[in-house]
């Protein structure tokens, strides 16, 4: 037991009760002789004297509900009484010291359910075995004759011992090897798969739940920051004399640019992302810090992107998409097939920069004291935030205590931890005083992490029956990791196909915004497929079904079984969606229906669901759009909690609507043009669809992530529906930039009938 750390924890807990401090106790040697003590069992739980159990959740809760769903998983195997479950966030330092005992801690890629289902069930089963063995030793009854129920061990005569009674003894028992524990038969699940209410539901309706922004410490100072307004710019100077006389101003801090963290899970490597120079003002209130920073004269050297704009980037992409690029997938002979095609179609699609814009602005609290550094930050990647805090402070990791509060949304934005580095740099400038760094909304919009701006050129050939015989797609995108899987890992096997992919450097660092590369490529691919269906006079569902044909999967494909399974799942959800939405039912003039189906298996390591969407819309003919109905059918394997999963799908629907209607960040002279929500609207009740229907497919498969599946397909189905309703063919975003009046030929057609 690390007594230093414990005393720090105790003193910190005293000043900030309510923030989820890990109670770090090992089973052996900490028993307080005056009475029962909390007992930790294999890092995952702490059994409290009153028989409540603290479960360590090795993920961030950013609204997706892991604090509840992952508790369900461990509590299931451990037979915990649900009312005694008390989840808490994991401690990155403990995880570091114990060699990544929590297995997977980065909250991204919709991975929580997939990555932690087995480890947390196994931990529950191991602990259950330890408790049973302890009870057996104490009572002399063999383990085989004991059973567990509601956080108690039941003997054949009906006698009960609570887990708390045997926990200390259990902590001295060597945990069974994970391969030796027997997991429950899913037929016996009482918690997994049940629509249990979120454990944080009530405090999220009373204002009591503490987010990072709510951290409050005695003597705390407030800071706000401005990074270089031009990406990649350098700080030349600032005139602090101009503001030092303003009320409450304590200090102006120069924040150095530098690496700001790994944008990806540590275990998988990941890329280190840059943070630009910044200036922070520290004051006795946020309001005063904000006013002083606005008044501070700052000189920037704008750097290489000072002349770069969205327009210049689009021109560059447009030029490159006209030139040959590296081939990332090829089959058959595209050139030959396109030459004999009955009909050839071409189209260019583009996708703008976007911004995740979580509602809780970026913030981090840091407190540097002689005995170490304390940090509080709502982040998606606490483990790396802890590492970054230690590096920035120049302290050994065990001198840094990291506290993970709830996050007011994240959507990929909190994968980057540059604000943690900023807060620690500020704390170093005012040692001994806790500082809370809070970004303004304007700073958040100025410094987002967009998905890559992208242009995509398509060319396809149809035979005389309207069958796709040739498919070409050339993609050039801005700064991003290699996302060639987006265009290349199509689920279909068109016999003659060529995919080319290239990237250029663009000013902003890349971010994993909800829906990531799939959103743009699923939309572009299926937007163009919808064009093919229209050109061939075919129902797009029939065209998709023809493309999703398992007999077309090459027999020598390495992962052929995976490819076939993808196709089967996609066909099944698409079929079901057409039934629910009554797809064949004709719609009156001005109304339209669009369809899309996809999975995230585009990227092999991404284990999320398969989903289909059908969207019904109405155009009023003078530019108005109403979204009448959204149907989503999702197969995500075993559902951990249907209400939580439905919430994630519903959220994805409105995320897609925001992307489609408003999603665009514009660069001018290297700066983001949009400043706040007045320049960048998002879906609200008035724009939201009033009829969202979600169906979850029953499945015993390993649980898949659900946070993003509906994003690309709902966006695609919506945009296809606009064309079906007589509106324009949308090949760029957002819709706000388009005239949604009826097409000329649509007017002619409808008038003629």
């Amino acid at each position, binding site marked *: 037991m690390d007594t230093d750390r414990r005393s720090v924890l105790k003193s910190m807990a005293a000043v900030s009760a309510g923030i989820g401090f890990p109670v770090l106790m090992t089973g052996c040697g900490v028993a307080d002789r005056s009475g029962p003590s909390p007992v930790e069992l294999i890092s995952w739980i702490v059994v409290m004297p009153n028989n409540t159990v603290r479960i360590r959740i090795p993920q961030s809760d950013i609204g997706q509900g892991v604090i509840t769903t992952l508790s369900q998983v461990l509590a299931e195997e451990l037979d915990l009484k649900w009312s005694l479950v008390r989840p808490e966030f994991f401690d990155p330092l403990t995880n570091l010291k114990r060699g990544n005992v929590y297995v997977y801690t980065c909250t991204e890629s919709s991975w929580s359910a997939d990555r932690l289902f087995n480890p947390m069930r196994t931990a529950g089963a191991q602990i259950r075995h330890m408790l049973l063995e302890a009870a057996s030793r104490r009572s002399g009854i063999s383990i085989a004759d004991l059973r567990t129920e509601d956080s108690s061990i039941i003997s054949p005569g009906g006698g009960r011992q609570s887990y708390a009674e045997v926990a200390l003894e259990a902590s001295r028992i060597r945990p069974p090897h994970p391969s030796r524990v027997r997991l429950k038969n899913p037929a016996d699940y009482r918690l997994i798969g049940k629509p249990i209410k979120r454990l944080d539901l009530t405090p999220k309706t*009373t204002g009591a*739940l503490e987010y990072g922004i709510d951290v409050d410490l005695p003597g705390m100072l407030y800071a706000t920051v401005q990074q270089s307004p031009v990406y990649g710019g350098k700080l030349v100077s600032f005139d602090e004399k101009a503001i030092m006389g303003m009320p409450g101003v304590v200090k102006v801090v120069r924040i150095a640019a530098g690496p700001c963290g790994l944008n990806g899970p540590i275990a998988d490597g990941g890329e280190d992302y840059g943070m630009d120079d910044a200036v922070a003002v520290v004051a006795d209130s946020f309001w005063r810090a904000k006013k002083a920073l606005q008044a501070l004269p700052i000189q920037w050297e704008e750097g290489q992107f000072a002349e770069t704009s969205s327009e210049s980037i689009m021109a560059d992409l447009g030029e490159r998409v006209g030139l040959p690029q590296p081939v990332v997938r090829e089959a058959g002979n595209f050139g030959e097939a396109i030459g004999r095609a009955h009909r050839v179609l071409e189209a260019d699609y583009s996708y703008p920069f976007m911004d995740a814009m979580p509602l809780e602005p970026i913030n981090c609290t840091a407190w540097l004291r002689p005995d170490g550094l304390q940090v509080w930050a709502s982040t998606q990647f606490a483990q790396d935030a802890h590492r970054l805090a230690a590096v920035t402070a120049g302290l050994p990791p065990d001198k840094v205590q990291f506290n993970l509060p709830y996050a007011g949304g994240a959507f990929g934005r909190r994968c980057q931890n540059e604000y943690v580095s900023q807060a620690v740099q500020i704390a170093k400038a005012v040692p001994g005083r806790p500082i809370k760094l809070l970004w303004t909304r304007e700073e958040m919009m100025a410094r987002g992490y967009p998905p890559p701006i992208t242009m995509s050129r398509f060319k396809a050939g149809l035979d005389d029956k309207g069958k796709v015989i040739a498919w070409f797609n050339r993609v050039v995108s801005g700064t991003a990791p290699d996302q060639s899987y987006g265009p290349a890992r199509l689920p279909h096997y068109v016999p003659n196909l060529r995919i080319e992919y290239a990237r250029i450097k663009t000013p902003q660092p890349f971010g994993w915004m909800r829906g990531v590369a799939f959103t743009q490529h699923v939309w572009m691919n299926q937007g163009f497929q919808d064009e093919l269906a229209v050109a061939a006079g075919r129902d797009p569902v029939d065209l998709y079904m023809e493309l999703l044909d398992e007999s077309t999967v090459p027999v020598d494909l390495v992962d052929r079984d995976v490819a076939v399974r993808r196709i089967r799942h996609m066909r099944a959800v698409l079929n079901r969606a057409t039934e629910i939405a009554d797809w064949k039912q004709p719609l009156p003039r001005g109304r339209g229906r669009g369809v899309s189906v996809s999975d995230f298996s585009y990227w092999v390591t991404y284990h999320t669901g398969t989903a289909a969407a059908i969207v019904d819309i109405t155009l009023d003919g003078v530019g108005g759009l109403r979204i009448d109905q959204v149907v989503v059918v999702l197969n995500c394997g075993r559902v951990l909690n249907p209400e939580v999963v439905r919430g994630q799908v519903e959220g994805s629907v409105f995320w897609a609507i925001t992307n489609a209607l408003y999603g665009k960040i514009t660069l001018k002279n290297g700066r983001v043009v949009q400043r706040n929500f007045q320049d960048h609207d998002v879906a609200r009740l008035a724009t939201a669809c009033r009829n969202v229907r979600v169906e979850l497919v029953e499945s015993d498969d390993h649980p898949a992530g659900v946070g993003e599946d509906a994003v690309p397909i709902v966006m695609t189905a919506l945009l296809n529906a606009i064309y079906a309703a007589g509106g324009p063919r949308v090949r760029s975003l957002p819709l706000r930039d388009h005239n949604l009046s009826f097409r000329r030929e649509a007017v002619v057609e409808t008038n003629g009938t």
Partner: protein
Amino acid sequence: MNIELKVNGSLMRADVDDDTPLLWVLRDTLKLKGTKYGCGIGQCGACTVIADGEATRSCSLAATAAVGIEITTIEGLSPDGGQFVQAAWQDHRVPQCGYCQSGMIMAVTALLSKTLFPTDDEIDREITNICRCGTYDRIRAAIHAAANNRS
């Protein structure tokens, strides 16, 4: 300057600059942290409180202008979540991240104090708060349920 505010039925004193928005006085001086900051320009509604019966964006109201006004924050509803809008929010499992929900619940409480049974169009017009998690469908259902179930 020193001001006295009436918040959740109690008189509270605060020393503020003339232009300090009510939001920051509530959060950082009075430590009522259920009211949230989202945009600072009255767009998102995370900071919504009820001021003399009106849903008001506290980021856009100077604290000095709030003197003499009855202010209710989320903490002034029911600490255990039993107020009828809060209860409807729980029944419909509205919150995801939950960050916008204080402001939503205050805006809806104000709406339902004037309009007994708001139509969908009235809801669209009156509740303009932003939820980035996209809980809108459940918000709408919870508003209708709250209207029907209020005691």
